[in-house]
């Protein structure tokens, strides 16, 4: 071969030599045929050391890379590989990262005679990339961290402010009773600065009287480990720096520390205002109760007075009438001397009207006593037969004088639960009305019907009867169908009250011109 190298070849050689990249020629067997300065630099072997040696032993890493082998085969087949990243080894053992391009070398006949490889050292590039990534990661991490730190600090600050300005005082106490945390409200409540609080013990804030028990309570609480809320109804007091005491509500919660101990967080509320209001309410209530009691007493007193008044009035009104009647009777007996017909007539009038007046007084008194709830009934088991007999006997002479016939059912052995005096009063009242409103030749009957657990007594007459309108109002106080027959219209009202007080009911059936029937019920014994 002529040593004459053409100018072009020399130029090419110069380019190859001056390239920073490693330009390596290899035989098909992988033996190095050319090794440029770039290769010397990148891989550390000199041209003398490299040429003639198998490339694998030189720069390939310890473990065979399958990819490389596969690629090489492709090049051998005539392919061109460009920019393929690979790991190679420097002479001194360090790892070199390269970007490889491989192309086949052909002779003038086009026959593959070798492989030309260009390797660019990308170690530093990769390193740079990695360091960039790392540092950008770092930066990101740093920014993240910073952001988190800032957020944390912000949250912390807000949290702190929250605690500081909470409406209630907040203290945290360690297991020895020393205050390890306090807020502004606590300072205001107790009159200490935060320094003073943090230097002090929680027992100082407890009134002296309760100090002894307090330490024990704290220990018990810490042991129990369960939060204790406010409003348990305990009467607690706290002590200010100046010694004054104020009422408080305290809620406690335990906080486990990392060291395994227990701290206690206490939230303290000044309830002076609330207590004052409660006290006011209580005082108000008490005064209302007292007022109520006083009024009740007054009402009772007035009732009692009324009672006494009625009793004395009745006595005062009736006493003279008794004697009037008595003397009238005596006159009528003619024991002190005979009377002429006119005089007898006078005496009769006086007697009748006096009796009438007495009846009115009794009615008025009865009704007012019933209405003020002062009439007392004494219920007994009474023989109905006897009661009816008595009432009928009482009215008999009067009825005979008016030529009205009276008849009555025999109730047999029936007994009712009633007040004897009042039952007599009711029967007498009804009978006297019946006789009063029945013309001569008429008839009054007392009927008895059993109805389950009660008995219905009817006083029927063949008298003048009354209209529907009158029937509806007949039991009302002062109501009178006619005012001609005298009376005050109280009799039936009293009957109604008396019957109802004994658990019964009263009613009327009537037809004008035919007659009336008054019914009332009483419970059987």
């Amino acid at each position: 071969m002529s040593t004459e190298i053409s100018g072009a070849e020399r130029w090419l050689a110069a380019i190859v030599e001056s390239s920073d990249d490693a330009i390596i020629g290899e035989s098909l067997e992988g033996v190095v045929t050319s090794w440029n300065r770039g290769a010397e630099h990148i891989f550390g072997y000199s041209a003398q050391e490299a040429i003639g040696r198998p490339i694998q032993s030189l720069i390939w890493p310890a473990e065979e890379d399958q990819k490389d082998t596969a690629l090489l085969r492709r090049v051998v087949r005539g392919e061109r590989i460009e920019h393929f990243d690979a790991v190679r080894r420097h002479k001194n053992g360090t790892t070199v990262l390269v970007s490889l391009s491989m192309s086949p070398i052909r002779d003038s006949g086009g026959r593959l005679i070798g492989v030309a490889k260009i390797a660019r050292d990308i170690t530093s590039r990769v390193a740079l990339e990695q360091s960039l990534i790392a540092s950008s990661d770092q930066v990101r991490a740093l920014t993240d961290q910073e952001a988190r730190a800032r957020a944390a600090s912000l949250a912390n600050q807000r949290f702190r402010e929250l605690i500081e300005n909470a409406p209630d005082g907040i203290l945290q106490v360690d297991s020895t009773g020393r205050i390890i945390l306090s807020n502004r409200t606590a300072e205001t409540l107790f009159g200490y600065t935060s320094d003073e609080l943090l230097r002090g013990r929680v027992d100082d804030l407890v009134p002296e009287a309760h100090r002894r028990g307090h330490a024990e309570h704290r220990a018990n609480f810490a042991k129990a480990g369960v939060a204790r809320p406010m409003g348990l109804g305990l009467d607690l007091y706290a002590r200010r720096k100046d010694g004054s005491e104020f009422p408080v509500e305290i809620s406690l919660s335990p906080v486990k520390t990392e060291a395994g101990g227990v701290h206690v967080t206490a939230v303290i509320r000044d309830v002076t205002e609330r207590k004052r209001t409660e006290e006011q309410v209580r005082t108000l209530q008490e005064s209302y109760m007292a007022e109520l009691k006083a009024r009740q007493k007054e009402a009772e007193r007035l009732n009692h007075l009324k009672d006494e008044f009625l009793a004395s009035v009745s006595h005062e009104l009736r006493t003279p009438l008794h004697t009037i009647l008595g003397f009238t009777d005596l006159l009528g007996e003619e024991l002190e001397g005979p009377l002429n017909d006119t005089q007898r007539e006078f005496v009769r009038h006086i007697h009748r009207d006096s009796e009438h007046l007495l009846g009115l007084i009794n009615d008025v008194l009865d009704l007012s006593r019933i209405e003020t709830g002062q009439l007392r009934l004494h219920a007994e088991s009474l023989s109905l037969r006897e009661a009816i007999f008595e009432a009928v006997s009482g009215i008999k002479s009067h009825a005979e004088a008016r030529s009205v016939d009276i008849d009555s059912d025999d109730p047999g052995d029936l007994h009712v639960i009633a007040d004897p005096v009042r039952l007599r009063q009711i029967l007498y009242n009804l009978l006297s009305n019946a006789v009063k409103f029945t013309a001569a030749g008429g008839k009054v009957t007392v009927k008895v019907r059993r109805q389950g657990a009660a008995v219905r007594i009817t006083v029927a007459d063949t008298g003048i009867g009354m209209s529907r309108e009158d029937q509806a109002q007949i039991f009302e106080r002062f109501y009178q169908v006619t005012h001609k027959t005298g009376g005050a219209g109280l009799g039936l009202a009293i009957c109604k009250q008396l019957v109802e007080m004994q658990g019964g009911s009263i009613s009327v059936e009537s037809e004008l011109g035919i007659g009336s029937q008054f019914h009332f019920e009483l419970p059987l014994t």
Partner: protein
Amino acid sequence: MVWGESVDGLRQNTNGTRKRVLIADDSQSSLDLLRFILERSGCDVIEAQDGKQALILALQYNPDLFILDLNMPQLDGYGVAAELRKQAAFMQTPILALSAGITATDSARITQAGFSAFLSKPIPPAALRKCISELL
């Protein structure tokens, strides 16, 4: 009202002396009425205006019959009866109670207090005479 009923009085007891009746009522009018009826029946009448006076006069006159109004101020009929029954002299003496408006409870109380009988005012004179003749 009854007319011309014969007087059922006791003019004399077995050995001929007139019966002595002590009457007590705070109403003078009532006392007058009783006096008329009793004297007509041949009894001697001692009047008392109240319970205390009744007891004093009782000891003084030793009556054969007491007629007491239940409703008197200070010491009422019940009180007088109770006191009388404590005394040996009057343990057996008949005592009649007079009152307006006697209720069922009252009648029980009357018997318990030691009264021998009672009458409700207004009392027809005939009824009073009948009662007295039964008691004496």
